[in-house]
């Protein structure tokens, strides 16, 4: 069975470590905050200028001046700090964020990522995504393995305009956890009940399959 959105978030959360500063993109990545393991603390960085993002406010707490990078109203946790966009991206570009999780349309075996623009469709802009992928050492891309029409999103070469070149090493799809190394996808784990054959058949780029590919356990 393909992973649910929640299972993707749970699996990503296993990459967290106590004391990590983490930037979570919009969509599934945001859900990761719900699955921080017991006894572990992480601090969420929001690129509009907030380190220590808390949960959504109650009706009474809502404040137009307190939002996250998704423009949602939020709160702060104890020990938070608030700063300018320049300072926020100094943190990001300078490699100070321990883990970045974000979505994508495509990744390829060179570690390229395309996530912000589909030519001919609406052009909305890259926001902070280009800075995030260029600045972080430790990035997990979350995405569906293939489109609804079965077209692979794990490619030899991205077909869409890139968000970043050569910066992705870890991809979690609804079917598998994959690392990118020396120009190939390495199949590290598979979703429960999903066969290696299915994953390989839905992967257009070169994939290396180790002898044993463990099933994820939830």
């Amino acid at each position, binding site marked *: 069975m393909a992973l649910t959105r929640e299972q993707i978030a749970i699996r990503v959360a296993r990459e967290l470590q106590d004391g990590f500063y983490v930037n979570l993109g919009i969509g599934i990545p945001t859900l990761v905050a719900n699955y921080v393991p017991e006894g572990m603390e992480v601090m969420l960085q929001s690129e509009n200028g907030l380190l220590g993002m808390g949960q959504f406010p109650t009706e009474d707490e*809502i404040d137009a001046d307190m939002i996250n990078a998704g423009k949602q109203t939020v709160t702060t946790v104890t020990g938070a700090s608030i700063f300018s966009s320049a300072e926020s991206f100094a943190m990001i570009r300078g490699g100070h964020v321990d883990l970045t999780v974000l979505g994508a349309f495509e990744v390829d075996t060179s570690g390229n990522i395309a996530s912000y623009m589909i030519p001919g469709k609406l052009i909305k*802009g890259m926001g902070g*995504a*280009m800075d995030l992928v260029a600045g972080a050492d430790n990035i997990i891309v979350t995405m569906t393995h293939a489109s609804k029409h079965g077209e692979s999103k794990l490619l030899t070469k991205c077909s869409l305009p890139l968000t970043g070149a050569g910066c992705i090493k870890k991809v979690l799809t609804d079917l598998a956890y994959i690392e990118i190394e020396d120009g190939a996808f390495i199949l590290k784990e598979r979703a429960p009940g999903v066969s290696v054959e299915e994953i390989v058949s839905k992967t257009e780029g070169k994939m290396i399959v180790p002898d044993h590919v463990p099933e994820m356990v939830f």
Partner: protein
Amino acid sequence: MSGFNKVVNSYDEAMAGLEDGMTVIAGGFGLCGIPENLIAQVKKMGTKDLTIVSNNCGVDGFGLGVLLEDRQVKKMVSSYVGENALFMQQLLAGELEVELTPQGTLAEKMRAGGAGIPAFYTATGYGTPVAEGKDVRDFKGRNYILEESITGDFAIVKGWKADKFGNVIYRHTAQNFNPMAATAGKITVVEVEEIVEPGELDPAHIHTPGIYVDRLIVGTFEKRIEQRTVRT
């Protein structure tokens, strides 16, 4: 009051001197911390062919979006412009130019503009459409692209409190792009919720020192919320 008093008493005075074809740098992220009344004043003035540098372009009918209604904007320099139907319509009709700029690069371009740094290298955008036509250089084994700084004829900024000398503090995440915008305008105009006497703000907590501020005005703000999310 001395020559350091930056207070003006009308929005007409605040934006006096704005002319067709000028570049305006605006603070704000989404609808948070935007200089709503200064934007409204630009709409009222009807100034045309403006280049607007701002992370976003507001929404239909609010924030910078209102400047699209009478086609006052020639070009937007932004990182994300997805919240605005009129924007897309004018863009696709070729009536509006847009220069998409990564958010961190945009923030740094404004800061550099204010700080006398004409250009800097960044890894952001290397190998992407953003790099087209830009110098590439290797530092310690990694490729970076050269990005030039931005300055504006005007900068329009939303603060929380300021003293009359133009020392400004921002509230929560309404800070965002405002401090950098404030440094990068030939004329920097700041609107705030409250003006206090010099000495009331702690010198160590001032986000924008008065040296960057030319005009200061107190306004009232709608502060529209873009994504109202609550927990129960």
